[in-house]
């Protein structure tokens, strides 16, 4: 899952090197925290959150194949 998010994010941003994903595995669910360069945040979220929503949809489809839940958090750097 981590690699999938990493790949999706990298193919969307201008700054692929700044993409960072931290995965925290729970019993049935995983939390994925995605960090990107500040100027790329818009690319990841998209107009009315459509890009972020699409990433989550793809993640959920992949996760449901292995009967897990995945939560994607997009983390803003400060």
């Amino acid at each position, binding site marked *: 899952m981590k690699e*999938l998010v990493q*790949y999706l994010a990298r*193919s969307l941003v201008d700054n692929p090197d700044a993409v960072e994903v931290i995965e925290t595995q729970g019993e049935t669910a995983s939390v994925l925290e995605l960090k990107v360069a500040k100027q790329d945040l818009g690319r990841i979220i*998209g*107009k009315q959150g459509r890009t972020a929503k*699409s990433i989550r*949809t*793809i993640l959920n*489809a992949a996760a*449901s194949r292995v009967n897990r839940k995945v939560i994607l958090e997009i983390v803003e750097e400060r």
Partner: protein
Amino acid sequence: MEHMEAEGETIDDAIENALNTLRVEREQVTVEILSDVKKGILGIGARKARVRVSLRRSIDIDQEPREERQPPTNRSMKESASAVGERGKDILVEILRLMGVQATIEVKPGETGEEIVLDIRGDNGGLLIGRRGQTLEALQYILTRAVGERHGAERPQLIVDTENYHERRKKTLEDMALRLGEKAKRQRTTVSIDSLSARDRRIIHLTLEDDPWITTRSLGQGAYRRLLIVPEGDRKKKEP
């Protein structure tokens, strides 16, 4: 009325750019020339041709924002189309691999020249289609984003398909359009349909276009955009 402005090296180029963006035919729009090409002195003060294009009927257009881009010179539509198709295919192959899906992708031309279909074969596609096609749509959206930013304005549209989903969806929508059209006429009430994608609405508009007893319209913004089927008391006039 829906309209947009476009630029080009010549007036004809500008019109073509607008038609490609709206994905409509020349007959469906009226064109107003805003300014002709200006040469300028040593390139200073040079201007491109600008036109405003208005849709004649309420044909739905894609609501996505389009950045202003310079049309590439000496472009070869065919070449850039296959380049986009191949790039899209490479990214899709990698996404599917990371999703744990066993599948091959076939790249083929779509119904219109501006579309390229990436057909996913091999896996039992139901999982990739998702509820009401939402997973396919998400894949398509991400691919368009990932591929699109790096090509010119003339880029073709990528369609992600599996197990003929789009074909089946189109049939379903056409049946629904005709059924709701009959309902609107029989009950003399306006029928509204919620939560359809721009593409889905377009299919309904086109299906009911030739029925003189009803007109179709879209109302609202973004995700809240609805399609209305309005019964006409009198025969629709030839020219609105």
